[in-house]
């Protein structure tokens, strides 16, 4: 189910003294099976773009097509759309409200009209996907740690079985362990066939798991490509206030020091490249 964004612009509070252009002429296709990372400096319009994908915001001009249907057309079923495109907000742990984790995860599927065994199966399945300790299911969500709460919130969205999952900074503000665990969950979701749009500030994670990267700068789509293509343009990224992953930074410094290594995205790849370069050097000597 591809999502097409056609010449979309969004203006906040048009006609008032607080008018602000958030997005300008965005043109982007999200294909099935993508793990698209959306990166950009604070205020570049990432979150605004994310909220357009399931119709929470309406574009000022342009269209958003999901499965070829204009989601903002008259008579479009927004609730049905929100079942297909799930959205996990920034600091999603603050949306939890039920007495138990179980009930909170059940909120979404219940709104879809599920009851009884079917509902129970959905909740347990979603709960299993986020790798929480089994005894947390009947606990109050407010007793959990921040990282666990965030995973409960993710389970609440996953339980609706969306085919596209949009996540706004899912790993921001977590400790390293929580971050790794959540990154694993995201990767597993992607492997199970869910198309993922991931907003992130963490370039290392983007390099590790994204299949494509879209760079937003001041409301415009500045770059689009594979992580390797994008991170090769380090200077441009820096001019937009963005970083390259640590692995790429290290490659740059190695090259500056005279070692011939290509840009590497993962630790394993980098280790391999360094070994090859060292062996090559040793052979010369």
């Amino acid at each position, binding site marked *: 189910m591809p999502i097409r964004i056609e010449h979309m612009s969004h203006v906040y*509070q048009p006609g008032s003294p607080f008018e602000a252009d958030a997005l300008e002429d965005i043109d982007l296709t999200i294909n099935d099976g993508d793990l698209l990372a959306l990166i950009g400096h604070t205020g570049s319009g990432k979150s605004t773009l994310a*909220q357009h994908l*399931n119709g*929470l915001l309406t574009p000022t001009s342009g269209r958003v097509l999901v499965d070829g249907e204009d989601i903002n057309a008259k008579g479009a079923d927004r*609730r049905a759309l*929100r*079942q297909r495109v*799930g*959205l996990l*907000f920034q600091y*999603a742990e*603050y*949306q*939890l*409200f*039920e007495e138990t984790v179980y009930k909170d995860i059940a*909120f*979404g599927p219940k*709104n*879809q009209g599920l009851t009884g065994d079917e509902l129970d199966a959905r909740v347990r399945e979603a709960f299993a996907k986020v790798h929480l300790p089994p005894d947390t299911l009947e606990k109050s969500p*407010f007793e959990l740690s921040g990282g666990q709460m965030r995973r409960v919130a993710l389970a*609440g*969205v996953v339980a*609706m079985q969306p085919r596209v999952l949009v996540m706004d900074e899912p790993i921001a503000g977590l400790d390293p362990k929580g971050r790794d665990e959540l990154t694993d969950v995201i990767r597993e979701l992607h492997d199970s066939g869910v198309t993922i749009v991931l907003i992130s500030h963490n370039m290392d994670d983007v390099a590790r798991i994204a299949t494509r990267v879209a760079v937003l700068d001041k409301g415009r789509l500045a770059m689009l490509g594979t992580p390797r293509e994008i991170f090769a343009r380090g200077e441009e990224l820096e001019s937009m206030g963005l970083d390259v992953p640590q692995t790429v930074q290290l490659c740059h410094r190695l090259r500056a020091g005279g070692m011939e290594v290509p840009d590497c995205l993962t630790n394993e790849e980098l280790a391999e490249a360094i070994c090859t370069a060292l062996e090559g050097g040793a052979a010369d000597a």
Partner: protein
Amino acid sequence: MLKDITLGQYYPVKSPVHNLDPRIKIILTIAFIVAVFLGTSLWAFIPVAAYIILAAVLAHLPLKLLLKGIKPLRIILIFTFLLNLFFNAGETVLLEVWKIRITLEGLLTAIRFSMRLVFLVSGASLLTLTTPPVVLTDGMERLLSPLRKIGFPAHELAMMMSIALRFIPVLLEEADKIMKAQMARGADFESGNLIQRAKSMVPLLVPLFVSAFRRAGDLAMAMEARCYHGGEGRTRLRVLKLTMNDLYACLITAALIVIVVLI
């Protein structure tokens, strides 16, 4: 959606009225309200209206804004007008249909009461439109501070008010965000009968309360960490000073009261 609600409704322009001392503005607003109620004849409303219009013009406020403040009151206004019109005993009967009797006295009272309401609200909105909330609470604190001698918590009250006002936009934004998050999970805030709709607010209100308490805790901690210990011996960022403009404003208001009493 919730962002569209204007609260505190401060109208940010530079004007002599905006620059008046908040203490003076509060006192003058009270004096104005007294003037509105002092007038007995309908003629007394002419100087009152002139005063409001003068103030609005000096403050560079579009009159439309003042009228907008009266709009939510229209039902109360109509109600007040009709009640006074129908249920006032009087001598001069203007119209009599079945048991309903409209008298001249009733009509005059109805007009008077509605006019009082209109001017009451416009006077109060004039104050909030030209004074930022923080300055307003500051002025209130200073006005109430003599009462500290008899144990009235003037500073604490003003601090609570400023914090409450400060957090209205924050909580509105938060509510907006939580609402969207729950809508993304298929929540429906708009349809259904009253009970269903009240129930549908739970997923919004619980997280909102939790976050309000969390914020309150954080704020208390941050204030303590910066050695906040109440109003005792605290100096101010804005030192209030009276100017000639404050004097003129007082004179004009005094003139208004005298004219109203004389009419």
